[in-house]
C-alpha cells in the first residue's frame, strides 16, 4: 500500500525459495499430465471436426434412420447401426434425435451437430460432456464400457424449452 524503498530487488528468503521451487515443480507436473494421458489414457477429447450445414447433416441422420431403424419409443425412432459405423445424433430445439442402440465394448463414430442454436451433449450418468454447434459436425469416437439405458441431457442453454431436451442411448451386452 505504501511506496517501497527505491531498491527492492533483493534475494528471496529460504522459505520463499523452497515454495517457489515446489510450486514450479507442481505446475510442470500439471502440464505434463495432459500429454501423458493423451498417450496412455483411454479418455481423450475428440478433435475430429467437419463442416456440415444443417441440411447436409439432417440428410445423413435421415439416411441412417432409414437404413438401421429397429423400433420406436414415444415417437422417436430407435436405430441400431453396426459396430464401427458412423452414428448421427442431431440436436435441435428441444430434442436429441434419434434414439441409438449400441453394443458394449464396440467402437462407434458418433457425429454431433445442431440444426439451430448451440446445445450441450451431456451423457448421463457417465457424465461426458461436449459442445454441439450448428455448422460443425463433431465426431466423438466412443466405446461404451457399461450396458444399460443412458440419457443425453442438453446442458447448454438453448431457449425456454432447454429443460425438456433429453435423449436416450441404449447399450446392450
Amino acid at each position: 500500500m505504501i511506496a517501497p524503498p527505491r531498491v527492492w530487488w533483493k534475494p528471496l528468503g529460504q522459505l520463499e525459495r523452497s515454495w517457489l521451487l515446489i510450486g514450479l515443480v507442481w505446475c510442470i507436473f500439471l502440464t505434463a499430465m495432459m500429454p501423458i494421458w493423451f498417450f496412455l489414457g483411454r479418455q481423450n477429447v475428440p478433435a475430429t471436426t467437419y463442416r456440415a450445414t444443417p441440411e447436409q447433416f439432417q440428410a445423413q441422420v435421415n439416411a441412417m434412420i432409414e437404413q438401421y431403424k429397429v423400433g420406436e419409443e414415444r415417437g422417436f425412432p430407435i436405430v441400431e447401426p453396426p459396430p464401427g459405423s458412423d452414428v448421427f445424433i442431431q440436436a435441435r430445439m428441444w430434442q436429441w434425435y434419434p434414439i441409438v442402440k449400441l453394443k458394449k465394448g464396440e467402437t462407434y463414430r458418433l457425429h454431433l451437430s445442431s440444426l439451430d442454436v448451440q446445445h450441450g451433449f451431456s451423457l448421463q450418468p457417465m457424465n461426458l460432456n461436449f459442445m454441439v454447434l450448428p455448422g460443425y459436425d463433431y465426431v466423438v469416437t466412443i466405446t461404451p464400457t457399461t450396458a444399460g439405458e443412458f440419457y443425453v441431457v442438453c446442458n447448454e442453454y438453448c431457449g425456454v424449452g432447454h429443460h425438456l431436451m433429453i435423449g436416450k442411448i441404449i447399450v446392450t451386452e
Partner: protein
Amino acid sequence: MAVTSIAREREHAIFRTCSATGLKVDLAAERLIIANAVVAVVMLLIGGIIALLLALTRWQAIHLLNPVWFYRLTTIHGIDMLVAWIVFFEVAGLYFGSTVLLNARMVKPSIAWFAFVLMLVGGLMVNVVVLMGGSDVMFTAYVPLKAHPLFYLGYILFAVGALIAVALFFVNVVVAKAEGRYEGSMPLVVFGLATAGIIATYTLLSGALAFVPAFFWSLGLVDNYDPGFFRNFFWSFGHPAQQINLAAMVAVWYALAFLTVGAVPLNEKLSRLAFILYIFFINLGSAHHLLVDPGPSFAWKATNTSYAMYLAVLGSMIHAFSIPAALEVALRRQGHKRGLLEWLRKAPWREPGFAALVVSMFVFGWIGGVTGVTIGTEQINMLAHNTLRIPGHFHATVVGGTTLAFMGLTYYLIPLIFRRELKLKKLAIWQPYVYGLGMALVSVGMIAAGLQGVSRRHWDVTFTQAPFQSPVPGTVHLALAVMGIGAIIAIIGGTMFLLVVLSSVFTGKRQEATSVTLVVDPPPFLGYMSEKEEKDAQLQPRGTFVIVLVFLMFFAAYYLSNWWLLGRTWMVR
C-alpha cells in the same frame, strides 16, 4: 480537514488531507470513487435478491420460479453481478489506487464522468431489454441465439465506458509520476491494479470483437456469424475479465493486509513477478472454455490451457504464500513469535477487514483455485463442462473471493472516503464469516451436484415435462439442498453488508477518520524489515509454509481423484 488547491497546467485540483493516513485526496476523484462504488453496491443488491430466487429454484424441493423467469433472471444475475457490480467497483478501485494512494490528482474528471454515464446507460439498457422479454440469452449470449439489438449495444456502451476508465487510470499514474507526487517505486497495490488495467485493455478490446459483429448480426446487417468464432472471441473477453478481478482482488488483499495488521510484502520482487506472470499468461487460459468444442486440436487446447496457464497458476501459488507470509511476519514482529501458529491465534479476528481477507483467501484458494485448475485440465473438462461444477467453481472465486475482498475494502472506504462513522459494527464483525460460510456451502453444493452430472442453467433436474426421465439419486437432491441452504446464509451475510454500508453512508455521523482500523487498535507501523530482522529465525513465516504444504496436498488429492474418476468412464477419443 486541510484543503489545499494545487494549480498545475491550468488544472485545478482541490485536495483534502486525510487525518488518519496523511494521504492527500483529490475531491474530484473522491466524488467519482463514491459514485462508482454506490452504483456497484446497488447492482450487488439487485443481483443478490435475484440470486436467492435462483438458488431457491434450483433447490428442487422448493422450485420457486417458472422456467421463463428462471432463465430471464439467470441472465440478469450474470450480467448485474459479474459485469456491473464487479466492474463498477473495479473502476472505483482504479481511481482510488491511481489518485489517493499516490497523493495524486484525477487528471480528467469530466471524461471520467462521461465513462461513468456510458457504463450506467449500457448497464441499464441491458437490464431493461432483458426484463422486457425476448432476450433471454444468458450473459454469454452465444450466437445464434438472438437477443434484441439494444442488448448488444448496451454491452458495447458498457465496455467502451470501462475502457475509458482504464485509460484514465494509466493517465493518472503517469501524470502522478511526472509531477513527482510520490517517492520511491509505485506501491505494490497500485502495481497490482496496473496489472488489472493492462489485462482489462486487451480483454475489453476482445469484447468489442465479439459484440460489435453480434450487434450488426442482430440488426440483420450481417447474415451469418459463426458460433465457433463467437465463442472464441467471447471467451477472450469473458475469461480474462475474470483475471482482472483476480489481479484487482490480490491488490485488495495486499491493501487489507496493510490496513489491518500493517503487513508489507516480504519480497517485492517475487510479488511483482507474480503479477507479471498474470499479464503474460493468464489470457491464454480463456481457451479452457473451449476444451470440448468442435474445432481446435488436442495440441491447441493443451498448449493454451496448460503451458501458459500453469505459469499463471504459479503466479497465484506465489501470492498464496506471500500474502499469508506477510501477515505472519507482521504479527511476529508485533511480538507473537511463539511456535508455529501463535501469530494466527493472536491475529485481529474481530477486525472486519482481516476477517474478510482471510475468509476470502481461503474460499478463493481452497475451493475456487483448486477446482478451477482441475476442471481447466483438457481431458478432465469432459467431466465438468457446463455442469453445476462450473458455477460452483466461480462462486468460490468471484463471489466468495473477490466479492468478499471488495466488501472488506468497502468498510474502510466508509471512514476514509465517505468520511462517515461506521455504524452497526457488530454486524460488520460477523459479516465476513456468515457470508463466507454461506458461499462455501453454495459452492460445495453446486460442485457436488455437478460431479453427479447436474447441468448448469437448468430449470428442472427431474425432467418432469420431458419425454424421458433420467433417474435422480437422492444425493443430487442433498447437494442441491446444501446449495440452497448456503444461499440463504450467504444472502443473510450479504444483507448484513448492505445494512452496514447503507446505514453508515446515510445515517452515520459525518466525521474525519481518526484511525485506519475499525474495531481493533491500529497496527503499529513497522515499515519494511531491516537487514537484521530479515535474518531473525523467529521472524520467518514458518507457519505459513506448513499451511501452504497442507494446501498443496489437498490440491493434489482433489486433482488426482478427478483423473481417477475420468479413468472410469467410457472410452472416448
